[in-house]
């Protein structure tokens, strides 16, 4: 026989090596994006009690929306609940590092922000956190993208990205959509 089984297996192993090589290129690019461009999944594993989060602490209603802390850190806190986001609109500056933090008192939700890599699940029992820098201004759509019950289709919020000059915190450091 012109080609024996060893020859066949050798050709397969040669192809397997090439396949692993191709897949390795992809893995290296992924690692590069993670380490150099700081693009990683949202994985902060921070717990919160869904039954009490609306009553006190970080996710009580007066504390929601965008706030600039004394040290200049910009954080937007949003509660996802059947079937709305509180607040339904947040303002954030472009070209500045910002943090979005989400929690839910009821079921699984999730968000994406159109045109960006901002994407996270919102799981009852956990705080979801995404650090990012918005590069383009405008009104971005932030829908709930995970099935959360019959009202899921209507659940959506707006992320208003403004030029840094237009981002003006009030006396408590808060910035809201209504203030415009």
């Amino acid at each position, binding site marked *: 026989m012109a080609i024996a089984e060893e020859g066949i297996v050798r050709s*397969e192993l040669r192809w397997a090596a090439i396949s692993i090589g191709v897949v390795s290129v992809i*893995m290296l690019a992924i690692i590069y994006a*993670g380490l150099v461009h700081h693009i990683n*999944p949202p994985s902060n594993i921070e717990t919160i009690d*869904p039954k009490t989060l609306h009553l006190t602490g970080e996710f009580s209603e007066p504390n929601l929306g965008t706030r600039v802390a004394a040290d200049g850190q910009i954080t937007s806190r949003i509660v996802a609940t059947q079937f709305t986001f509180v607040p339904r609109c947040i303002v954030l500056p472009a070209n500045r590092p910002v943090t979005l933090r989400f929690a839910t008192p009821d079921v699984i939700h999730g968000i994406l922000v159109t045109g960006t*890599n901002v994407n996270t699940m*919102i*799981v009852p*029992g956990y705080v979801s956190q995404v650090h990012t820098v918005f590069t383009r201004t405008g009104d971005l759509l932030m829908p709930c993208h995970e099935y959360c019950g019959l009202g899921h*289709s209507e659940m959506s919020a707006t992320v208003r990205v403004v030029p840094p000059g237009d981002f003006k915190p009030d006396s408590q450091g808060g910035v809201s959509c209504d203030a415009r």
Partner: protein
Amino acid sequence: MTHARNLTFAHLWVAFIAFTIALVLGVWQMWARSPLPAPFLTASTYFSSVTAHGTATAYVLTTFMVMGFGYYVAETALARPLPAPRWAWIAFALGVAGTLMAVVTILTGRAAVLFTFYPPLIASVFYYLGLVLVVAASWIWCVLMLIAMGQWKRANPGRPVPLAMFATVANAVMWLWTTVGVAAELLFQVIPAALGLKAEMDVGLSRTLFSWTLHAIVYFWLIPSYIAFYTMVPQAAGGRLYSDTMGRLTFVLFLLYSLPVGLHHLLMDPQQSNAFKFLQVALTALVSVPTLLTVFTIGASLEIAGRLRGGRGLFGWIAALPWERPMVLATGLAFLMLGLGGFGGLINMSYGMNAMVHNTSWVTAHFHLIFGGTVVIMYFAIAYAIWPTLTGRAAPSLALQRLQLWLWFIGMLVMTLPWHTLGLLGQWRRVATFNYADPIIAAWGPWVIVSLIGGVILLASGLLFVYNLLEFNVAREPNAEAPGALYATAVHPPARVPATLNGFRLWNALVLVLMVLAYGYPLAQFFIIKSPEALVHRVDERR
């Protein structure tokens, strides 16, 4: 064939009937999401339809196809009667009863939780019990496959188990491992909640348990198609299987690497660490290898066939292949869809890149293309190939079979290619009606309609498939071939294979090691960090 004939008929007809219903629901769902007004549309009917569509395609079509084809392989590849056929029929009855229980519950609006069930959303307990019965039926099938292979090995000491059966049993072993995740989630969390025994549940734990099942299950679905690639396609094309050994290795690699990768479905979840997400991404990269190997091995097998038919040069053998044969045509179309669907999958699994596509229509596009496309088109081809031996009649019209396959391919591309774009534009999933007044969403409208047209083509193809099978009943010419003639011969049929490629003891041990490594801490963490539980939200209350 002794017992398999009726068993295979029964299972495959249940599979295809469920599938046809799912197609109708799918088209209606796409109509609902489009700018065109759809009838009967409320949130309740839409999400019940999505649950039914997902349950019918992901749990019923697949499980019954795997079981029915498995019984067929067990008798025809091993050339001996199936052991304990009574148990096979008990399993069938359990599976049908479970399916009916789940379907009735869904149609009465008491199970709008989708086939991935989103705890703490909790449906009527009868939805979950229905699925438990289907899984129990499949476990009986697994045991029967193991017994059949064991009996053959004792009767044929030292000889290699025929590849089709080796692969079928690899699938059975993998399925037993796969179902542990969802079984634990149902048994310890979801069903107690559905029975009202628990008012709270740990959602992070339930999502992680479900992810254990969620990826490996797709390999449970695709292995019959790969069995066709390796053991039927070379024969249908008039060639030989390039390497029997590599075939065995491919199915072993699927057994090993389809399981410890489920966290790639939870890359955007806050309750798992980057460390374990990255580990499972690396393992996912490895599970692409058996598919890349398959492309080469089956390519080489078809190249043998093409060159035997006079094809010359680097690519001339492709045109020389007997494309008029449905099994060959289906394979070509399957491989085209595998390329596109595999591309989508590589994007999905790429760690941080998942953020670009998670829960958008890109994901919907990926799994419809890779499962609905590559895998299901081979289900059609398998049915067309074995129907003559089941019915005793020759195929009445190969032209109609080819037309059906082409319609499926075209419909699948027309439906899924727009979804890829829409996903990147931000179109998100599980929406009953879009607000087309919003300018961002309005721009999507035309593409949604194009996608809907693809769905209608698929429905037509699905109906033609059923028609083609029914036509056998009125066909005149008797079938001339024995079932065994369907199976391919290798270039070098092995006289012996190492025990590791003839059985699963070593691989089971390795699976255990991999699962402890990949899932050990991700599951244990829920018992270490006291994560607060979420309140159960029932969806089955009558309003």
